C-alpha cells in the first residue's frame, strides 16, 4: 500500500509541475499577430493585457520588429526567455516548421488554427504537427480550439470581466462551447480555476488535464465537455483510481454508434449509444449531465456546497411562496429520486404553534404566501427554518422566492431579510442541510436587475442560486449521486 501511495503522490506532483506553466505562464509567445491590421492574435494580446497578465509577451513575426508596442521576434527560439505558452493562429501548413524551429525553447503550444484532423484532408498535416511539436520539444494543445482561460495566470481567450480565481476547473473539446461555459458560467456565479479548450487533442489529452485538476489544490470541482475520448481506457483507469476525490461533471456530446456497427453478437447489438459513458459514471462517480444549463448548474452547486457522503442527499424540504410551483417541484423532484415528504407530527405541531396566517401550508412543501413571509419584515422565516432544521432534519433545503409576487407589496429589504434569516439558521446547524436558493422571476427588467444583484450576493456567501425549481432539482440529484458514490466506495472492500 505504501508503495502505491508513493507512486500516486509522485504522479500528482509530476502533473502539477508539468502543467503549472500552462495555467500560470510567465512568458507568452503569440504567432499570427499583425503589425498592420488587427487579427485574432492581436485581440488575444489586447485581451490578456486587459485581463491583467503581467508576464512577458513575445509576438513572433518573420519581418515585423514591433507589434502592438511589443518587440517582435523571428522564431520561437529567438525570445529572450524560454516560452511557457505559445498562442498560435496562422495558416495551418506553416505551423509544423515553426514548432520544430523552437528547439526546446517552448513548453506549451496551443494551436488555434483548424484544417487538421477534424477534416479528412487535414489528417496528414495533423500528424506532421504532432511530430514537429515533439521534435521542437514542446507539448501541443489542440489544434482546432480557442485557447485557455486562466484567471490566476491572467490569460484569457474570451472577452470577459471578472478576474477572480475560483475553484471550478474545466476541459472542453469544443471551443465555442468553452466560450459559452465561461461567459454563462460567470454570469451565474461560477468562478473558474481554469478552462482550457483542447480541440482535436492531437497531443495533450483531456485525461491529462483532468489529472492536473485533481492534483491542483486551487480546483475543487472538475467539469468536462467531451465528444470522443481517444484514450478512454486511460481516462477510465485514472478516474477509477481517484474515486471521485473531487466531483467530476461530464457533458457528453455526440452519441456513438460504433458498438452497433460492428456487432456480430447479441451483446454487441445492445451496446451502442452512450452505455459506455453511463458505465464510466457508475464506476467512477462522475456525474453525467445532458445540457449546457445542467452542466453550469451542477458546477455551481459543487462550487458552493460541501458534499456530505455520510448522509447522501435524499430528503428535501421546499420552503417559499407559490403553492402550484411547490406541488410541481415535489413531483419533479420525485422523478429525480429525491423525496419531498411531509414532516413528522412533532415538526408539524411545532410549526402550527407559530400560528402562521391562513393559507400557509406547514407539512412540506412549506408554502408561505407573501403575506406570511413579510411578517416582521421577513424575519418570520428564521423561526420557521429553525423548526425545520431542528426537528424536520432534511438533507437539503430549497428556498424558493417568486420575486414577482413581492413587487409592490413589500419593502425591498424583505427579500434580503428572508435570505439573511436562512443563512443564520444554516450557520446554527452547520453541515446539517445543503441550502439552495431559487429566485423565480418573470423577465421584467427591473426585477431581473434585482435578481442579478441578489444572485451575486448569495453566491458570494456560498449559496447556489437557480432560476427554476427543476434546475435546483437536477443539481441536487447530481449531488446525491456523487455523495452516494463516495459513501459506497469508502465502505467497499471488494
Amino acid at each position, binding site marked *: 500500500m505504501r508503495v502505491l501511495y508513493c507512486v500516486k503522490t509522485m504522479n500528482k506532483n509530476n502533473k502539477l509541475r508539468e502543467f503549472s506553466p500552462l495555467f500560470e505562464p510567465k512568458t507568452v509567445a503569440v504567432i499570427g499577430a499583425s503589425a498592420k491590421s488587427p487579427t485574432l492574435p492581436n485581440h488575444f494580446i489586447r485581451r490578456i493585457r486587459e485581463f491583467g497578465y503581467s508576464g512577458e509577451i513575445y509576438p513572433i513575426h518573420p519581418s515585423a520588429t514591433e507589434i502592438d508596442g511589443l518587440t517582435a521576434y523571428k522564431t520561437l527560439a529567438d525570445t529572450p526567455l524560454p516560452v511557457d505558452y505559445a498562442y498560435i493562429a496562422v495558416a495551418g501548413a506553416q505551423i509544423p516548421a515553426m514548432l520544430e524551429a523552437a528547439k526546446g525553447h517552448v513548453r506549451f503550444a496551443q494551436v488555434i488554427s483548424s484544417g487538421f484532423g477534424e477534416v479528412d484532408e487535414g489528417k496528414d498535416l495533423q500528424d506532421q504537427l504532432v511530430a514537429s511539436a515533439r521534435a521542437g520539444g514542446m507539448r501541443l494543445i489542440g489544434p482546432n480550439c480557442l485557447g485557455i482561460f486562466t484567471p490566476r495566470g491572467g490569460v484569457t481567450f474570451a472577452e470577459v470581466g471578472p478576474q477572480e480565481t475560483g475553484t471550478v476547473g474545466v476541459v472542453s473539446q469544443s471551443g465555442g462551447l468553452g466560450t459559452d461555459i465561461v461567459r454563462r458560467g460567470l454570469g451565474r456565479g461560477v468562478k473558474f480555476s481554469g478552462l482550457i479548450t483542447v480541440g482535436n487533442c492531437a497531443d495533450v489529452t483531456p485525461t491529462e488535464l483532468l489529472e492536473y485538476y485533481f492534483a491542483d489544490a486551487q480546483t475543487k470541482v472538475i467539469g468536462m465537455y467531451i465528444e470522443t475520448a481517444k484514450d478512454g*481506457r486511460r481516462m477510465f483507469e485514472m478516474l477509477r483510481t481517484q474515486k471521485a476525490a473531487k466531483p467530476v461533471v461530464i457533458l457528453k456530446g455526440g452519441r456513438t454508434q460504433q458498438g452497433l456497427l460492428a456487432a456480430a*453478437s447479441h*451483446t*454487441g447489438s*445492445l451496446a451502442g449509444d452512450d*452505455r*459506455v459513458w453511463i458505465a464510466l459514471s457508475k*464506476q467512477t462517480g462522475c456525474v453525467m449531465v445532458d445540457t449546457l444549463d445542467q452542466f453550469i448548474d451542477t458546477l455551481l452547486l459543487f462550487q458552493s456546497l460541501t458534499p456530505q457522503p455520510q448522509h447522501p442527499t435524499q430528503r428535501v424540504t421546499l420552503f417559499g411562496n407559490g403553492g402550484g410551483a411547490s406541488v410541481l417541484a415535489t413531483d419533479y423532484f420525485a422523478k429525480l429520486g429525491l423525496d419531498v415528504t411531509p414532516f413528522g407530527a412533532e415538526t408539524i405541531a411545532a410549526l402550527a404553534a407559530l400560528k402562521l396566517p391562513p393559507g400557509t401550508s406547514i407539512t412540506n412543501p412549506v408554502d408561505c404566501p407573501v403575506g406570511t413571509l413579510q411578517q416582521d419584515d421577513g424575519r418570520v422565516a428564521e423561526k420557521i427554518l429553525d423548526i425545520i432544521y431542528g426537528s424536520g432534519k432534511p438533507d437539503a433545503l430549497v428556498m424558493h422566492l417568486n420575486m414577482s409576487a413581492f413587487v409592490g407589496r413589500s419593502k425591498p429589504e424583505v427579500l434580503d431579510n428572508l435570505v439573511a434569516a436562512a443563512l443564520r439558521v444554516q450557520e446554527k446547524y452547520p453541515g446539517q442541510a445543503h441550502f439552495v436558493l431559487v429566485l423565480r422571476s418573470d423577465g421584467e427588467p427591473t426585477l431581473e436587475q434585482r435578481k442579478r444583484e441578489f444572485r451575486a450576493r448569495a453566491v458570494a456567501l456560498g449559496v447556489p442560486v437557480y432560476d427554476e425549481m427543476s434546475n435546483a432539482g437536477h443539481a441536487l440529484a447530481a449531488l446525491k449521486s456523487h455523495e452516494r458514490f463516495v459513501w459506497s466506495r469508502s465502505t467497499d472492500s471488494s
Partner: protein
Amino acid sequence: MKAQDLIAQARAQQRTALDEYAGKSLLTEYGVAVPRSATVKNANEVDAAFARLKPPLVVKIMSPDILHKSDAGGVKIGVKSAVEAKDAINAMAASPRIKDARIDGYLIEEMAPAGQEIVIGGLRDPQFGPLVMVGLGGIFVEVLADVSFRICPITRLDAEEMLAELKGAAILAGARGRKPVSRAAIVDALMKIGGENGLLMQHMQHDGDISEADINPLMVSESAAVAVDARFILR
C-alpha cells in the same frame, strides 16, 4: 485444453467463432460452471458417452454453418436413453436444414437445473477496452433491452450494482411466487468473466483474441449458476 490452445485450434480451422464445446471449455478455464458433457462424431459413439452422463440429457448439433441451433432443429432436450439420443442424432443429420451443413459432431450434455435465465456478454469498445454486460434472459434482453454495462475490470460492488439497476431486478428476488435465485452465483460468474483476472481482461484487451462474447443463457438456481450456451467471436 488450455484457453490459448482452444483459440489456436479454432483459428487453424479458419473459424470466426469458437464452437459451443470449445466455448464452454474456455469458460471452464475461468471457473464458470458448465453442464457435464461429451462430444460424439455420430450415433455410433453414443453408448460410450452415455455411460459417463446422468440423464435427462440434451443433444445439440455442432456445426460452423448453423448459428441458431434450435431454429434449425439442432437441439433435442429431455433425452433419457441412449436409444433416444441415437434417434435424435439420426433425425438431425437427415433434417432439411442440417443435412447440407458441415457437421463437426454432436454435444451431449446433462440438463441444467431449472432456474432464471441470465445473459452475460462481453464486447470490446475501441476507446475503453472490454465491456461486460448482464441482463435477464428472454424478453427482458431481447425485447426490452434491459441490460447493464460496465467497463472491465469490475469489482463485486460493480457487479451487484449492475444487477440492482436492471428493471427486472425484482425477478431475482422471487417475484410472482417464484423462488429467489442466487445473486451471489451471478456476481461470481460476472467476476469470472469481467473481473480483474476474468476472461475478458485476458482475451479482450488491446491485442486480445476475442471480440465479442455471449453467455446466453446462464441458468441460475437458488444456489448455483451454469452456462448452458456460450458463443465467442474471434477477432
